[in-house]
């Protein structure tokens, strides 16, 4: 199995490895995959509440080189995008960018799921916040 240069680059120099404070209301956390499947991705975003722009993104991945590269790329792509723009990212975009072979396409699907899960978590937190703001009035 030979890896594309981009996958190798992400593997050797992964972007945005780390964690954000999952308790912060500005942070959305997506945790997808399962250890038994050999793939687990945690992708976190910190969103500016006024502009809805994803200002920071971090990831951690348990998985093969293609999985690590897919999630690393995902954090690169979501940074600077609004939440809605980030939702438009499709797994086939990742496949194309990293030249993933057919057997590794599922890694890109998981990365797309991770983005959605992180955004979903963030949205849930925003919805939960509103009633509290009303009560405080």
């Amino acid at each position, binding site marked *: 199995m030979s890896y594309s240069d981009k996958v190798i680059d992400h593997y050797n120099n992964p972007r945005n*490895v780390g964690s954000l404070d999952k308790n912060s209301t500005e942070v959305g956390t997506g*945790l997808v*995959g399962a*250890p*038994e499947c050999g793939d687990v991705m*945690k992708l976190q975003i910190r969103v500016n509440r006024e502009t809805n722009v994803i200002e920071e993104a971090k990831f951690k991945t*348990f998985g*093969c080189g293609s999985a*690590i590269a897919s999630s690393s790329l995902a954090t690169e792509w979501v940074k600077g995008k609004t939440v809605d723009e980030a939702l438009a990212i499709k797994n086939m975009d990742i496949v194309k960018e990293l030249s993933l072979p057919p*057997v590794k396409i599922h890694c890109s699907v998981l990365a797309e799921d991770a983005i959605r899960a992180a955004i979903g978590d963030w949205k849930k937190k925003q919805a939960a916040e509103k009633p509290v703001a009303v009560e405080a009035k």
Partner: protein
Amino acid sequence: MSTDVKIPQELTVSKHAVPEGVKLPIYMDNHATTPMDPRVLEEMLPYFMEKFGNSASRNHSFGWAAEEGTELARERIAKLIGATTKEIIFTSGATESDNLAIKGAAEMYREKGNHIITAVTEHKAVLDTCKRLEKYGYRVTYLPVQKDGLIDLDDLKRAMDDKTILVSIMAANNEIGVLQPITEIGKMCRERGVIFHTDATQAIGKIPVDVNKNNIDLASISAHKMYGPKGVGALYVRRKNPRVQISAIIDGGGHERGMRSGTLNVPGIVGLGKACAICQEEMQQETARLSGLRDRLRERIMSRLDETYINGSMEHRLPGNLNISFAYVEGESLLMGINDIAVSSGSACTSATLEPSYVLKALGAGDDLAHSSIRFGIGRFNTQAEVDYVADRVIETVERLRELSPLYEMAKEGINLKDVKWAAE
């Protein structure tokens, strides 16, 4: 050993310098195959251009010269396992030998019964052959293994019935190196008149195998697992006490006492013979050296990394084998990080079918540890300097990947990963 394998420089981001005398890439996957011993190659060479005759040509010196080569090889193989020359049949390798032994015995003893017993950790050459026989109406029992990889002899005893004609259990496992109790298995079979076949591919040449002491009736042998050429192997077929017969699966001329037709691969067979002779002579020192290197690798890795688990019994194991799971790190990503070293993994990501190792699953460890496993196969041409370098590279790569791992992070936070509800894709 020179090599033309190119290592993409971009992949090697190690802080360890390559030690003096170590050439990259390092080959430490000796259960997959072995490099040929130069002495074996030397022994084979005359049989390509000068002594090129067909060993079945009985009427001229070209044939006789070739036959001399194959008969000497036959003697050497027989000597290594305590057999007689009449009991050695040449094949194209252990896969064919497994097929011949199992299908051949099944067909020959069909009137006697239709039940075969094997184990879940056998090589695919045995398992797939058994699956095919099931399609033909044979009944097959696949014995489970215990946590250490060994079968439970009581399970075997209970499984045997009056229709059992064959038991096939490997002497040494190719993934975890575990040694099955073949002497006891053979004894149990002998007492009940059941034929005992052992896939001895990984064992012969590495540990003492004696067909009489171990009560073996059929044994598969492969040249390329013992520093011989690929494409040649043998099957031991017992002639006395009791006499075992098998039907041929390849017809055409009746070579090898009617059990395996086809012109003999003379140079290959000569190589197999020489490989056996070398193993016989050097086995004792080699075993000591390889266990020493293996233990050194194990200690070096496990003393520096926590949450590493050995798969399979350490006590009943091939001297050069080590199979370790590194929790929270996936196998293929680990291999990618040590790409100047050739080893293999039980991870699903490294298999064409995306299935994790069925051998590791059978140990009951859980899929996540199967995904995190690496198999090291130390062999004749590995050195201490190589072992130290490999250990250091593995340690640094595991540490780096654990920093990237959400599972490691969760475990350090005190979360029990087994309690987490995972959202699988």
